[in-house]
């Protein structure tokens, strides 16, 4: 599923990405036919339930999948093919051109090293600057991400910081070398709600300030709605809907997107109102159905849905939906987003 761009060569272009993993339940196709392109300065959101292939897609972009994983398709960074790149060459890109922020700031920092050392590491590695320069730059970075008293705390250890502060440190670490692409894998999931907004604002500010492209992964539709220009909804390893964030929220085409939207908890709902859920569970990646992956949980499923994986239907400019029944889903639920 592609979202076409009007002008400019894409910074990152992913074509028909597939990832096969060896799980305890046998080989599993964790990601199938994911395609998208990202221009410089553009932000893209990836949304979906746990186990839908969001993180695997991110790790595939970083070249950090286990050795046993089979990656097919193509990932191009400024025209350079990354699939099948040797680990040595990939090391030169990671942290330098592509960076990643992880979900758990508590575990993403090595408890044995000072935060200063960990933030300075990519700098020393990729820019070849001296220890003194790296230290100066690290203090500036830590200051920029809003760590109080950066100069005084650069030699502290991770356990001496709170969760929010640690996430600021990992952001500084990811941004150290001014990467072109930043992948943020649920950067706020492990944080207090009060801190979440600040961290997301910080990331958004930095992305804009440095002209980076960002891929933001989240299971939270609210986070996606506020932080990215374009979004992709993933389910069972495939992209089921993609488009401009505003367009998708105004006219949700896929029954799964609609379900996700209805399932979000709302403030001000009458007490005792039950939260809406999507019936059923995410299919096992090891034995995905032949047809639409969402068929077993879909309210408007037909026999033909189960026969073959539906192709993408364009329902608007750059807005694609992988569903056979858009005629029905988009009329009956057209008002969902309104």
């Amino acid at each position, binding site marked *: 599923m592609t979202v076409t761009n009007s002008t400019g060569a894409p910074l990152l272009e992913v074509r028909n990405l597939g990832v096969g993993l060896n799980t305890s339940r046998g080989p599993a196709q964790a990601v199938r036919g994911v395609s998208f392109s990202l221009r410089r300065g553009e932000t893209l959101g990836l949304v979906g339930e746990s186990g839908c292939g969001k993180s695997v897609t991110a790790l595939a972009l*970083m070249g*950090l999948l286990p*050795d046993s994983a089979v990656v097919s398709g193509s990932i191009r960074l400024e025209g350079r093919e990354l699939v099948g790149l040797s*680990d*040595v060459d990939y*090391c*030169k*890109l*990671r*942290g*330098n051109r592509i*960076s*990643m922020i*992880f979900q*758990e700031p508590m*575990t*993403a*920092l*090595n*408890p*044995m*090293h000072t935060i200063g050392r960990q933030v300075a*590491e*990519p700098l020393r*590695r*990729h820019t070849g600057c001296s220890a003194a320069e790296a230290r100066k730059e690290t203090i500036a970075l830590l*200051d*920029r*991400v*809003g*760590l*109080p*008293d950066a100069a005084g*705390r650069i030699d*502290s*250890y991770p*356990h*001496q*910081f*709170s*969760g*929010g*502060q640690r996430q*600021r440190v*990992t952001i500084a*670490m*990811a941004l*150290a070398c001014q990467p072109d692409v930043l992948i943020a894998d649920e950067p706020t999931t492990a944080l207090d709600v*009060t*801190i979440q907004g*600040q961290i997301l*604002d*910080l990331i958004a*500010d930095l992305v804009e300030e440095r002209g980076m492209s960002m891929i933001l992964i989240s299971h939270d539709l609210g986070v996606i709605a506020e932080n990215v220009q374009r979004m992709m909804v993933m389910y069972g390893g495939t992209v089921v809907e993609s488009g401009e964030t505003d367009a998708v929220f105004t006219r949700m085409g896929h029954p799964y997107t609609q379900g996700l939207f209805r399932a979000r908890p709302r403030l001000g709902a009458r007490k005792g109102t039950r939260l809406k859920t999507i019936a059923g569970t995410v299919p096992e990646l090891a034995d995905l159905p032949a047809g639409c992956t969402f068929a077993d949980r879909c309210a408007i499923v037909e026999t033909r849905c189960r026969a073959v994986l539906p192709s993408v239907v364009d329902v608007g400019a750059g807005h694609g939906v992988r569903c056979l029944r858009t005629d029905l889903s988009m009329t009956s639920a057209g008002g969902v987003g309104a």
Partner: protein
Amino acid sequence: MSAPLTAAAGGPVIVPGARPSTGFWRRAPRHRSFVLGAVLSVLVLGAALLSLVWTPWSAYDIDVAAKLQPPSAAHWLGTDVLGRDIVSLLLVGARATIMIGVIAVGIGLTCGVCLGLIASARKGWTEELIMRMSDFTFAFPAVLSAIMLAAVIGPGMLTSITAIGIFQIPTFVRVTRGSANAIWAREFVLAARAAGKGKFRITIEHVLPNILSVLIVQATIQFALAILAEAALSYLGLGTQPPQPSWGRMLNDAQTLLFQSPMLAVYPGVAIAIAVLGLNLLGDGLRDLLDPRLARER
């Protein structure tokens, strides 16, 4: 928006100068088995060091006229069948014991940790090969490999050191690989890889420091095993050769006189027991004290 962030990030949890290991020296004196183990180990080490500068008598001088004497003011623990002073023999024997232990554990630790780290970092067939080879080595007891080595290069201290050292490698390979694999699965390693670090640097900077405490504990316990193995090999006549005194040899010599003067076997036996018990207690204590889960309970 950077300015207001400072206030909101939660109260800074500043522990001045604190490192994850600071609690060690505070908790160590209160840990009973650690203290006892340390005292016993220091006792053995002290005996070995003392023997370098002073022994009551020479451990090499034979005085058959004064053989098998009971404890007296001159010979505190008496003399053996060749009239050598038992205390002097024990002191000099401690030196041999510690030297063999240190070198053998050094061999096992160096080779074992390197192989274990390689296995853990490379995975795939490299890991398979290293692990199967270590299983193979593990199947041979130290005594058996020492006998084989003795057949090739002749018995002696070198034989026993080599045999014990090789015997120790697979244990260190397994411990290293097991704990290194656990570290490789941690998110900060993924984050380090995402920052562009290669496997070698991650191994040195992230994996090794995090498994160091496990290795220290294992080395202490392996040291005790090496002492036992050395005593066994010397007892069998494959290790330290006369006239070099060693605790295992003293046991061997005492064997024939077990009914005549049983105490001759008790002294080196107690010495071996003290060394092994001390190191085991020390290892247990270190394990408790270096365990990060216990370290956090302050």
